[in-house]
């Protein structure tokens, strides 16, 4: 069920988006982590993908040295933190 996003989430996501372009990469990581701990933040995957498309210096092939780490870390944050978020922090969410 889709629900209306709250202001804090929108602000965090916007800050993360701005950080992708002008902030240090670790600031984006912290903001993404904050988003994923509090919300099921699908937008984090978009941010990781955007970061890879903007900064990845090599074409993607299946090799450890040429993996899109931004997208992979985003997937880990969104799906890896989901059980932790649901059980300890916020309870179940379908959004």
């Amino acid at each position, binding site marked *: 069920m889709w629900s209306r996003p709250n202001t804090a989430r929108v602000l965090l996501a916007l800050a993360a988006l701005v950080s992708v372009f002008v902030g*240090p*990469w670790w600031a984006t990581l912290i903001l993404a982590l904050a988003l994923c701990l509090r919300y099921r933040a699908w937008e984090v995957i978009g941010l990781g993908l955007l970061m890879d498309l*903007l900064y990845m*210096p090599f074409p*993607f092939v299946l090799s450890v040295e040429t993996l899109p780490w931004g997208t992979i870390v985003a997937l880990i944050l969104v799906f890896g933190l989901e059980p932790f978020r649901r059980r300890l922090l916020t309870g179940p969410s379908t959004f």
Partner: protein
Amino acid sequence: MKNLYRQNEPQLFVAFVAILVVAGAIFGVDTLSGGLVRGYAREGGSALWALANSATAFVTESGALSGKRALEEENKALEGELGRRDEYLARFEALEDENAALREMANLAANESGITASLLSSLWSSPYGTFTIGIGADAGVHEGDVVLTPGGFVLGVVTNVAARTSLVEALFAGGKEIELTTSDIAFTAEGQGGGNARARVPRDAAVEARAVVLVPGLASRPAGIVGAVESASSSAFTSVYIHLPVNVNVLRYVYVVTP
């Protein structure tokens, strides 16, 4: 509550698979098209970077944030000026060495053509040690072109070219190994990011602080200067810390050497 978790898990799995498929498709199209998707993303991003750079320049140059902030900015500017002077001094020493080498090898061409480019994205924004510059294929930039600081030190190499932007991988990107030489001593350094690198050379190698480090793979252009040399009495090696003589985070323009 437990039922709700169980209901969510298959949905999550489906979402995970769907996202993998979409991301894989995007990267697949990008790879097959030779970086077209990344090129479009950077072209779109260049407008945002230009806007951010203009806003930063407006705030810092208009004196809108006066007082303590203004003093901090002035201090930073003076530090930048000192860094630039260090860079020119180091460059002068490198040019002297280069001049001596050129006398010995008269057939080595010294002149190189190039284009000045504005720096769009900051080096610290990228986890890959890359940055974007505001010129691309339209201006004659090619993959493999060398990018220099205003003082002539190697900053990086162009790895991906779009129509009006190019992606540059920093020479000292984190974890990247580079073959370098200084005072006729060849060694491999590991990039640390932010214009810094670290190397281990044999203890008896005569590496001194402030020596200019060259990249033999890039026509022996200067890549940095030795900042510090540390050696423990129990070790057979000496740690050499190399850095660019200019703060890469305050650079606004770079020079792209084109063939």
